[in-house]
């Protein structure tokens, strides 16, 4: 049972990572000449030709592809021409910053979104619930880059409470988190609200109440636990998404994460960096998805047995 599951996961991983890498390999090579980009506009054609030879770009595409596959199996994505160093360690060095920001955003969103979602579902007519609805819709409508600039102007430039960029002190984590969290808080709140309200009308909830269980026990054991499944899926997807790097936020706050690194790599035709980034991101996404699937089993015993 467990072996079958493990095999399934590994096959999925190989298919996804392999497929993404192959598509990327072809797209990158169709979209421009890294030798010319590397040499710059002032270089002579002779220098560019020498660079192409050195980078192996004169070989037929299929030879380049097999060389890429062979090296990728050894986790060798080649050297980044911009940093003249192996790509994978460079990308891995950016991962902690990205994961830290993703974890911070998801934690803050859960801490605020869970109570807000449950409260607004259980007391839908209260003022607080209306405020929660209003703020949730507003938060979904605010563009991230606008919010980021506004937060910098207010908290860094005017009030001088928080640093405007960087990632060396805990205080520098605050503004990027505040930029990314509102959207996720809103989505968790609204989804949990909807999910809880649906579960509230289920027969087993009425039965639990009829048995004379305390309302908070009904809420904790019967309502929330069942209502959580779609929310966990949402959090998993968002966490995976954030682990691929929040590009705009990373750029605005100079947050040294993997998203801005990937975009810079694409713009500079730094194939090695792009491929290593995509490999790492695909891997992290697969791991998170696996975690989400396993958590279903914890929440709902029926899923464990199927």
């Amino acid at each position: 049972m467990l072996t079958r599951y493990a095999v399934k996961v590994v096959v999925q991983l190989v298919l996804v990572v392999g497929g993404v890498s192959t598509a990327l390999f072809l797209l990158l090579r169709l979209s421009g000449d890294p030798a010319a980009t590397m040499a710059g506009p002032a270089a002579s054609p002779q220098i560019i030709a020498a660079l192409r030879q050195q980078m192996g770009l004169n070989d037929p595409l299929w030879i380049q592809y097999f060389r890429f596959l062979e090296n990728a199996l050894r986790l060798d994505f080649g050297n980044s021409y911009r940093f003249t160093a192996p790509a994978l360690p460079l990308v891995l060095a950016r991962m902690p910053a990205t994961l830290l920001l993703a974890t911070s955003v998801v934690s803050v969103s859960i801490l605020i979104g869970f109570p807000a979602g449950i409260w607004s579902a259980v007391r839908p007519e209260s003022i607080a619930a209306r405020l929660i609805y209003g703020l949730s819709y507003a938060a979904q409508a605010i563009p991230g880059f606008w919010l980021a600039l506004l937060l910098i102007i207010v908290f860094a430039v005017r009030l001088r409470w928080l640093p405007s960029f960087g990632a060396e002190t805990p205080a520098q984590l605050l503004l990027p988190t505040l930029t990314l969290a509102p959207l996720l808080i809103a989505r968790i709140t609204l989804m949990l609200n909807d999910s809880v309200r649906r579960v509230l009308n289920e027969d087993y909830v009425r039965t639990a109440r009829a048995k004379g269980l305390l309302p908070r026990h009904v809420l904790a054991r019967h309502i929330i636990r069942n209502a959580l499944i779609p929310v966990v899926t949402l959090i998993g997807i968002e966490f995976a998404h954030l682990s691929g790097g929040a590009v705009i936020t990373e750029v605005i706050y100079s947050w040294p994460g993997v998203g801005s690194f990937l975009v810079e790599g694409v713009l500079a035709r730094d194939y090695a960096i792009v491929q290593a980034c995509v490999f790492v991101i695909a891997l992290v996404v697969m791991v998170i998805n696996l975690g989400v699937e396993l958590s279903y089993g914890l929440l709902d015993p029926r899923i464990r047995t199927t």
Partner: protein
Amino acid sequence: MNVKPIRQILAASILILVAVACAPAATPTAVPPAPTVARPTTAPNTAPAATAAPTTAPAATQASTAPQGSLIVGLGNIPGTGDPHKFVAPPSAWLNYLVFDALLENDDKYEQQPALAESYKNVSPTVWEFKLRPGVKFQNGDALTSADVKFSFDRVLSSGGKLPQQARVLTIAKVEAVDDLTVRFTTDKPDPLFLKRIASHYIIPQKYFTAQGEDGFGKAPIGTGPFKVTELTPDNQVVLEAFAGSWHGAPKVAKVVWKVIREPATRVNALKTGEIDIAQAIPPDQIAGLKSAGIQVLPVARAQVQTVAFNTTLKDSPLAKKEVRQALNYAVDKQALVDSLLTGFSNPANGQIVGPDSFGYNPDLKPYAYDAKKAKQMLADAGYPNGFTMKMEATVGNFPNDKQLYEAVASYLSEAGVKVDFKVIELSVWLKEFYSLPDQPPMFVQGLQYLPFMDSDLSLAWYSCTQAEATRRFCNDAFEAKFTASRAEMDPQKRLKLLQEANAILREEAPALFLYQLSDIWGLSSKVSGLAPRSDAVLTLERVVKK
């Protein structure tokens, strides 16, 4: 549901946020002192020795105060490696200048002065001998010897095109270490650019480089310059510390940190909050706001002339006719473009592809004055009374408003009767087309970098008949004669004249639409002074003082 209270609360919170954002800053703003630009204490200017008289420099004189404070610089990009022969454009050029030295260095007038060499002589037209400054130490304590110099040149000359620096020292055929402090260079033919080439080539320590290997050296470079690299985290930050044992004497600040801040708005904000002291590439529309916040703004002309390159080699193309090319130059109001879209922080190009800071610049040449009527008439006289349609391509996003600028050029040309089919392309496509002329449209926006210390030769070479066919858009006998002669002329004054004449022929022949010379805008906190505005890819942080 009653939404009124919610709306009120929401509106109130947004109002509070916006009010705080728009209110005047809490800190008082002071009018900054005008940026002071210190001239360096360099040796007296010595003409390249065509005679065998050795030139000697006095020992560098520097302030005796110890380096103080740390300087934080916000850049759009930082070097990925500290290897000075691998990347030669900014931001690498900025780092190379601070960490390494060449045998000669360029002063603020882009003339070559003694550096690691204290004297040199021209033994014969193709042989030069340099005496090294005694007692120079690398940052790891090793003494500089002629073996390091020979190694630094041989490494590049034998790289087979792998190291871009090779293009700058191509004429050097042989380097010999005569004794510990004497180096002899042999060029393949008399080379008037020789001293400029020497001043562009940084010296690295042979022993340390060999022990570390190429990658190791790139991560922890060692030079003889005023700053030592103590941290180089790719795409994040570079930390430099003052090197007390530098032959220059110690720099003014003890520590310099370069941080990657890609977003211009973030650089501007960080400058306002005081988190950084110097910021690169300030958007022109932010200048007024920065000045009112007490920030100094320093525009520096970029050693690059923006042009629309014409392919003149196609026989049936209208651009094969000189009159048509001139007409297109008359059709565009460059001053209006500079004033409106570049907010005045740039200059129209004076009918040439180099700026006033380049050796060979011709001060007598004037820009093609805007004259739409004349342009139309010239087109009619050339056989195009109804104009023609032509493709033009450009990359955008390189400086503020560039797309609007090229669109304005296209619309000026269409007023004169030339319908321009303008297309924005990506840099990779631009580069691909640039190196394979058949793929390139007849009009192609090109910024020509001219590196003032390497003189006009670098830019003029693009218009030589000797360009490889794949990049040759122009070939003219009169120009070629002057250009070829300039490459063999060892007398600087005669050479200057030849280059100026070559520039005059190019203005007349108009192989391009001469647009403007851009400026880069630096922002400096009011605590900082001493940064010299130089257009030769040098950032003089060793002279900067922080209060």
